[in-house]
């Protein structure tokens, strides 16, 4: 596959296979949009079915949610800077900003796990009511995606450290960058339609 290499493009777009992988990942993100939309639709149908148990205002901690939001949003920004460093061929800069991204993501997760523990202590488990089932699964699916992303990114960082910036490692980095940004886009909707909406009900 030495044909179709376009060296005027950024490294991750240079080979035909790379361009196909990136396109394939965008299509996968389309599928993820539908997946999260379905989870949102389930939440949208069940969110007021408290079954006599805890409601939104009983359990939500808005200050912590704001912190989580800033952490994730900042991590999306630092991921963008990491890709920008990659395009400047700055391997050290890339890895630095990349690790910062993962730390911020881990911080987000740490807070989310604490949030779930808080809910359970308040007697709000996913078996308590339909509202809580749908809340936990929506938030939990997003959190699982973040977790998976952190592990995946770690492996990519190892490969960059070992092999340097090649078309393949650049492509892998770019793709996980897309994934990471996408998770923040989903969070915007969770923040708005789960947390904020829950507080104004």
């Amino acid at each position, binding site marked *: 596959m030495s044909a179709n290499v376009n060296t005027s493009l950024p490294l991750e777009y240079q080979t035909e296979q790379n361009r196909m992988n990136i396109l394939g990942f965008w299509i996968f993100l389309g*599928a993820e949009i539908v997946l999260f939309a379905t989870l949102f639709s389930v939440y949208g149908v069940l969110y007021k079915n408290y079954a006599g148990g805890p409601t939104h205002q009983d359990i939500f901690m808005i200050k912590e949610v704001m912190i989580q939001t800033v952490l994730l949003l900042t991590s999306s920004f630092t991921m963008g800077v990491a890709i920008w460093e990659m395009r400047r061929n700055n391997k050290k800069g890339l890895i630095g900003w990349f690790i910062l991204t993962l730390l911020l993501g881990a911080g987000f997760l740490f807070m989310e796990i604490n949030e779930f523990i808080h809910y359970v202590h308040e007697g709000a488990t996913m*078996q308590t009511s*339909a509202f809580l089932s749908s809340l936990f699964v929506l938030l939990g699916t997003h959190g699982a995606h973040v977790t998976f992303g952190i592990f995946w990114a770690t492996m990519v960082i190892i490969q960059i450290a070992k092999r340097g910036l090649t078309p393949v490692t650049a492509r892998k980095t770019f793709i996980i960058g897309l994934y990471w940004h996408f998770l923040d886009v989903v969070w915007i909707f969770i923040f708005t339609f789960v947390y904020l909406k829950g507080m104004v009900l």
Partner: protein
Amino acid sequence: MEVTIVGIKWDEILITGDPIILGSQIAILLTSLGIIGGLTYLKKWKWLWREWITTVDHKRIGIMYIVAAVLMFFRGGMDGLMMKAQTSRPEMSLLDAQHYNEVFTAHGVIMILFMAMPFLIGLMNVVIPLQIGARDVAFPQLNALSFWLFFSGAMLFNIAFVVGGAPDAGWTSYFPLAGKEYSPGIGNNYYAISLQIAGLGTLMTGINFIVTILKMRTKGMTLMRMPMFTWTTLIMSVIIVAAFPIFTVALALMTFDRLYGTHFFTVAAGGSDMLWANLFWLWGHPEVYIVVLPAFGMFSEIFSTFSRKQLYGYKSMVVSIVAIAVLSMVVWVHHFYTMGSGALVNSFFSITTMMIAVPTGVKMFNWLFTMRKGRIKMTTAMLWSLAFVPNFVIGGVTGVMLAMGAADYQYHNTLFLVAHFHYVLIPGVVFAVFAGLYYWWPKMFGFMLNEKLGKWHFWLFVIGFNVTFMPMFFLGLNGAVRRAYTFSAESGFAPLFLLSAIGSVILAAGFAVFCYNIYWSIRYADRNISSDPWDARTLEWATASPVQHYNFAKLPEVKSLDAFWYMKKNNEGLALKDEEIEEIHMPSNSGLPFLMCVAFGIVGFFLIFEWHLLAAISAVLIIAGLIYRSFDYNDGYHIHKDEIKKTEGAWRKMEGKVNNHVS
């Protein structure tokens, strides 16, 4: 009889006390031992591993899909026969209500998800890269993974009835019946988990084919010069990406409700059973278009080839397919008009459902106009396509009857509905895959299926199909309901049920002839045939039969629609000069997809039996597989020029000396 050994209730895992099931368990055990024994005796393990289990070649993967589909067709068909036998006379006691439920559940799941889907995807796999002049799909290893995930899910589903208990809530698995309260065993866990695994494979196929078709078309093949089968595959893949994640979520929520005590669909604590039906059909309706579109594409190829005419109305065909795809996402409520959403909702969906009939009608006329003034060749593939037209139209117009929400209150869940969907699915999909198989068989294997046996297969099957399902329209209008294991003598249904049962025997005879045809052709068919036995129009026929490993020594250049026809008519691009041969880069085989299949199977099995700790531990296997894949930098290998020269020389020299079987 309770059988508890090492703390596991074996009598609950292995079903005991039922002679038919015991017979099946023994048969499965003996067959498995037979396969293992045979492979060992013939010393074919290495061959199996190297040539089939680790292959990433789209042609091989396609054949594996098709083999699996034919075997599943047999099982799904047996389920159908059992249902017809049970309902052939009033108050028969061949199957009690519980077993009948398990049988129609298996029949539906198998026929749609483990027969139709793999059959179509198998043919797509074989044909599409060839039709666009490519050497493989965009992601060959992902393609193999898709097959093995399908295989894993299908195998899990298939052992349910002997290990632990079969699902029994219908292929639609409605709540509250499918919930833990009303189905406390593990049977419906099989449904949730095995379909989830198989569904992941399908989603990957959708992504793979979109990228393949958009990015790997050979030079000169613009979108509007693609064969129609390629177009339908592209659009069908888009629908897969849009619809399958919905099913992923629905099955996951079902799993959570059954295994972890959540309340999505369980009405206690605020869940909604109607929400299941809503989510299921949000996926389920696009699913039927996922199966029918590639089928339409195959018919387009066959009508065109055997009328010796270019497909009529190419542009309107493309517009229709896109319209069908978009509309397919906004009609789903027609599956549950009677659940109570009210007049406004029902009216909206009645209108969209009636609208979706229009683009299909356009396609029908285009096929008919393709044949007009053409030179028709009555091959078996063409016969299937011709029979499709009137039979599918019956299914389609009864669909429009059902589309009217108010009227549907009379037809819903009667045998009228069952007859309708069999009249669209069987002519629409089954006739298509038979036609496609007869058509592309020589390309896949280098010999043809016997045309005379093919005609017996055709007539028995089509007559049997009509005798089976036409009476069901009238039974339904007279009040016979679906999923009922028996009926009374006083109902007056007996004569038509008996007629339908007789039809099913004729149908089975047709299928038996099909199986015999495969056996006879493998044994006796002439191997010395042309690489283009039908004098066809599209690029897949510009290769050897069976196709060379690398598909094309020189990637073709396309100048028009029906690229191969153009090449033949203008004598362009058919010859291969030595200087044009270059080294070809191919992807390496990989055992990882198969290992992932095993890993998913193990995790799935533990989840089904609700052995949560074991499931969590074995999930490590899946993670390990993903990590291995991430660090895998194997970039394939090169086929050298002399090997290509040899292969090309062999099949191109033969062209003057072959027997023309199409007369």
